[in-house]
């Protein structure tokens, strides 16, 4: 009744190709952005920033990156943790080597470095597919973590083997270390994620998205219409790694403030981000956000409910959380492989016809 297309007449292809053709969607997204940029900062404190909003946004960015590679281009990767580490460590090296550098440039540099590393580990994708490529990316994960642990140059010969953040500004605002205002840190991460999400949406609805999806759906036919599979897989690796690298740098510099390769960027991270896109929706920009929200927020919600609500011990609550996690992933794999994003789409399709479905 309230949400429908009838009466909308598009008179140009440009009007037909906008991201949100239905006005209600446009208002909805504007409302969400307004709440995110204006409403949320009003309640922001250190707890909300560090436990909820910043991790959610950063993981959304990482999920977006992996979704480009896995969801759109069909190349399964378990190297996400390693690429996050490249982002984190390269941002550290950039911050300590060039103290004057603006944080935005540091993030760009970290992304570019990760894109190069991603390209390098993407090279085997010419010869191998599926499970074998997974193993190659797994090798990337372990090799990168080992490298950052073994070579002291990467952590500036610290005795602890950790990297810790130094105060740096973005456009004149202090955004790193605990001294930074949580509102500023939140807005910094939010702005970056919004820009990257828009860029991702533009890529996947345009020429590159179509070529990636063509490779995913049928690489032989793609080759015969003139798409070079190798080139497209490599661009997917590069773009995806750029996103993941920026996310890795944000994890280190803005969220945690310190990192250690195996602890912060272990194989667990690779699986976590993969679960996000499976639960959220493979091949969907919205799905990356839904998946990240689900996986970052669910443990917090469950903990609050079980420990504070039902008075369970923290250990028991943790075990229930792990069990629920596993069950939900199996549930999504079987029932709705396209994840939460697809459920949302179904709701919208039903809503278009409601209340007269015939």
């Amino acid at each position: 009744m309230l949400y429908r297309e009838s009466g909308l007449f598009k008179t140009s292809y440009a009007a037909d190709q906008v991201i949100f053709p239905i006005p209600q969607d446009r208002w909805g997204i504007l409302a969400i952005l307004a709440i995110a940029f204006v409403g949320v900062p009003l309640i922001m404190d250190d707890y909300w920033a560090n436990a909820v909003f910043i991790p959610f946004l950063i993981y959304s960015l990482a999920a977006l990156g992996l979704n480009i590679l896995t969801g759109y281009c069909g190349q399964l990767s378990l190297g996400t943790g390693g690429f996050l580490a490249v982002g984190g460590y390269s941002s550290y090296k950039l911050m300590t080597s060039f103290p004057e550098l603006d944080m935005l440039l540091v993030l760009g540099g970290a992304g570019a470095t990760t894109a190069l590393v991603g390209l390098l580990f993407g090279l085997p994708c010419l010869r191998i597919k599926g499970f074998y490529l997974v193993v190659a990316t797994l090798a990337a994960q372990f090799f990168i973590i080992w490298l950052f642990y073994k070579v002291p140059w990467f952590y500036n010969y610290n005795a602890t083997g950790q990297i810790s953040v130094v105060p740096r500004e973005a456009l004149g605002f202090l955004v790193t270390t605990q001294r930074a205002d949580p509102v500023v840190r939140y807005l910094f991460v939010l702005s970056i994620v919004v820009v990257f999400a828009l860029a991702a949406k533009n890529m996947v609805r345009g020429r590159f998205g179509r070529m990636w999806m063509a490779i995913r759906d049928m690489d032989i036919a793609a080759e015969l219409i003139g798409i070079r599979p190798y080139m497209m897989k490599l661009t997917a690796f590069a773009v995806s790694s750029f996103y993941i690298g920026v996310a890795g740098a944000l994890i280190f510099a803005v969220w945690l403030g310190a990192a250690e390769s195996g602890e912060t960027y272990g194989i667990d991270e690779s699986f976590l981000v993969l679960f996000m896109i499976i639960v959220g929706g493979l091949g969907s920009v919205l799905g990356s956000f839904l998946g990240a929200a689900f996986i970052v927020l669910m443990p917090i919600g469950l903990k609050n409910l079980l420990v504070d609500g039902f008075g369970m011990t923290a250990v028991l609550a943790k075990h229930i959380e792990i069990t629920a996690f596993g069950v939900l992933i199996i549930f999504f794999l079987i029932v709705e492989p396209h994840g939460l994003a697809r459920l949302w789409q179904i709701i919208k399709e039903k809503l278009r016809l409601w209340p007269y479905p015939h």
Partner: protein
Amino acid sequence: MNAAPNKKANGKAETLLSVEAVSLSFGGVKAIRDVSFDIKKGEIRAIIGPNGAGKTSMLNVINGFYHPQEGTITYKGKTRNQMRPHVAASQGIARTFQNVALFKGMTTLDNIMSGRALRMKCNIFWQMLYYGPAKKEELEHREFVEKIIDFLEIQHIRRIPVGKLPYGLQKRVELGRALAMEPDLLLLDEPMAGMNLEEKEDMCRFVVDVSEQYGTTIALIEHDMGVVMDLADRVVVLDYGRKIADGTPKQVQNNQDVIDAYLGVSHD
């Protein structure tokens, strides 16, 4: 204007593609043995033959998916031993497949748009902005693709993922994707297989229209002899990888070897 569909194959038209003494084998299996034929500009050329005669292999050789061990392929005056798929695509050879090879997760519109891949050049940074040249390019190609959608009468399925479409429509979308490449040579591998009469008639009409309106040269494989005899200007017949006849539909129809091949007369 091009001539009517059943125009006589005349000797004056220039040769677009010629295949010289091509042999292709997979291990011990000889799929194609010493086959030569040519395709003239603007004609509809049918390749027929019983199952396993090497028809699809022949198309795969032409667009570079298989590499023949012997023989040469001359396309647009250039002679090669083998084609490469993306070279064939960039030089204007498009094809459809016997078992539909569409991108199942993408909509009809996206599938046909992907046929424009070679003609879209805008770099990834403009793509991220979806502004300026990227948007302009996208809209130009959208307009072209909409013409194909109108031509094939598939406006109503524009936004539907092709995996959900019935088979007949999928075949039509696949033809649309091939047409989006603006090919000079269109290879159709059994475009009417598995269709009912009405869908077949539609498809025949589209093939004839493509030939007449766009002047595209077409090579098609088809089992329905009625269709072949009506559409084709010239027919080449393969059997067990050999060429056994070549000529107008009438000549081929009366050729004793062809009749034997189809009726299954033993070869010794």
